[in-house]
């Protein structure tokens, strides 16, 4: 037993000591960035989304709802082992995730998932790993990630996406924000696509 205060009480006491006598009146946080004027109409927004995703050297294919299965199938390399999350709305060829180990997943060449949000300004897709998106490992280990995004899921910018994702239904769920294939700039700050995450990202935009 020790009479020394535990770390928690000591750190909190240090914080309070450090702040003693400080003016704690809140500083105004400017939030104008949350209501930026809309510069693009709906179709302009989707075009921007496609451009920005392609900017990261990810591939994008646009198709109609009725063509999703055919489009996805045409993207998947012939004979590739494909793993699918439970709850995927489209009946594409592949094996449903059965709680595979990481090593099992390493044996799959591709994964097909849905997404929750697309962000036009940054070319980002956000997965919240619910039905149709799968647990995190699923969209991570296989080398090709085909991600189906519906046009009505695409928002203008990061503040719009955060507002959506702040909803009660996503509370506590893990999220993965994906902007292009994995990449590194660690060698002379030259961007190289393809490190540990999927080396190919193919976004299917459905409208």
């Amino acid at each position, binding site marked *: 037993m020790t009479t020394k205060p535990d770390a928690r009480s000591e750190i909190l006491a240090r914080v309070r000591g450090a702040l003693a006598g400080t003016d704690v009146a809140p500083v105004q946080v400017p939030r104008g960035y949350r209501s930026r004027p809309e510069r693009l109409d709906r179709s302009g927004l989707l075009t921007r989304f496609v451009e920005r995703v392609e900017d990261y050297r990810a591939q994008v294919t646009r198709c109609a709802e009725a063509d999703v299965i055919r489009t996805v199938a045409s993207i998947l390399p012939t004979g590739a082992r494909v793993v699918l999350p439970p709850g995927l709305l489209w009946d594409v060829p592949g094996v449903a995730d059965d709680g595979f180990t990481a090593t099992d997943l390493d044996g799959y060449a591709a994964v097909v998932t849905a997404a929750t949000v697309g962000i036009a300004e940054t070319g980002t897709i956000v997965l919240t790993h619910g039905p149709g998106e799968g647990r995190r490992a699923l969209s991570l280990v296989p080398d090709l990630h085909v991600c189906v995004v519906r046009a009505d899921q695409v928002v203008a910018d990061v503040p719009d996406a955060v507002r959506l994702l*702040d909803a009660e239904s996503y509370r506590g769920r893990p999220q993965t924000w994906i902007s292009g294939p994995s990449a590194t700039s660690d060698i002379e700050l030259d961007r190289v696509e393809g490190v540990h995450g999927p080396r190919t990202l193919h976004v299917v935009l459905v409208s």
Partner: protein
Amino acid sequence: MVSTGSTTRGGSTTRATFVGMPAFPAAARTALADSQLRANLAHATGTIRAKRLHVVSEVDDWEELRLAGAAIKDNTLRHLDEHLLTLETALTARGATVHWARDAQEACRIVARVAKDNAVDEVVKVKSMVTQEIGLNEALATEGVAAWETDLAELIVQLGDDLPSHILVPAIHRNRAEIKAIFERSMAAAGRPAPDDLTDDPARLAEAARLHLREKFLRARMAVSGANFAVAETGTLVVVESEGNGRMCLTLPEILVSVVGIEKVVPTYDDLDVFLQLLPRSSTGERMNPYTSTWTGVTPGDGPQQVHVVLLDNGRTRALADELGRQALRCIRCSACLNVCPVYERTGGHAYGSVYPGPIGAILNPLLKGAGHDPQTDSLPYASTLCGACFEACPVRIDIPSILVDQRAKVVDAHRGRPSVTGVAMKGAAATLRTGRRLGLAEKLTPLGLRAARLLGVAHRWTSARDLPPPAAESFRAWWQRTDGGRDDDQA
């Protein structure tokens, strides 16, 4: 014997450390004489400066975002105790175990204990400044636990038995040919060897890292990470990265320990909308980094089922007590201030003798450690020309020049044992700079404040180091090797 992530030198298991580095002017002088280092740095910082300017200029309300980022962090710091308690409650409710660590030693002990309790002898690591700050890899090695760095640049540093020299790109001082040589020389001893036909093409080098690390990701039972942000309200941690090594570490192992500085807290989830705009554009000069992962305690059936969070002080409350300096705790470690700093570009990161180099390191180290304790730290506030470029680049508007001047005063005071004339004058200069900012006249008044500072001689130490044409007696690396990373050398 357990294999370790550190390399063996002279029979004992060691790893390069910053301990015993010469003070900044001496280290800078040797670094300046290394032309390869200067060429690598000039190329790298030039590239990233251009990218950053391009993506920042796309955002019309960038200045408002900076103000918002600064305001959110300031508001949080002013009630830090309450936010930490909220965070603890939220994390605990979500199945995470929260630990508190007063200092580096305590934090390392906690991580080592988690490893021991789970009979783990190796961990995979997500790049994290804070685990370098606390010397976690070395501490784990002494406990027989190997720590594998998985970020490409960190891997280069670890395999090269080298030291990080940049916050974002720790191996920024290495060019592709050097990296190829390091991989060929050292990968085999750490696991899967480099491919026989490796070239210095960055894509081939990245692929070699992918192959080398994949076996480690697939078998690792425990990971250690930091966090870029910790949301108090929800207990959500956020890691921002590029390569996917972060996702691997945060997702595949059974056990995850995240060491989080207490200043990483933001109050609410929606506050992230500011930082997820500021950070990637300032850091890698991208509209968005490839991957951002968030997790909230334990998610059944998805990712680690044993989640620990270590809340670390290690000098942060000391910095918090410094009325002017506490704004340094807003720092989101983007490294923009390094990339625009004329001093950093010429000396590189090693000269700062800390995991936090560049302008932020020049203020953060003395704020965390206090003035008057060691000559290395005391020399850092002088490692600047006070040109103000760091403030302009900083996404959370940290007034680095004013803090530098204020810290110089504190160093002087600490050495005199009482407030000195110079010290008081420098506080005056700091106040001038500060007032200038408040009045919105920063651009006009900064040069005035600088001139005042120079007249007072506060810039003298750096100026003399820079202006001397000192063909150093030996190169930085030669010094490094001869002195075993400074261990066998005095402050010479």
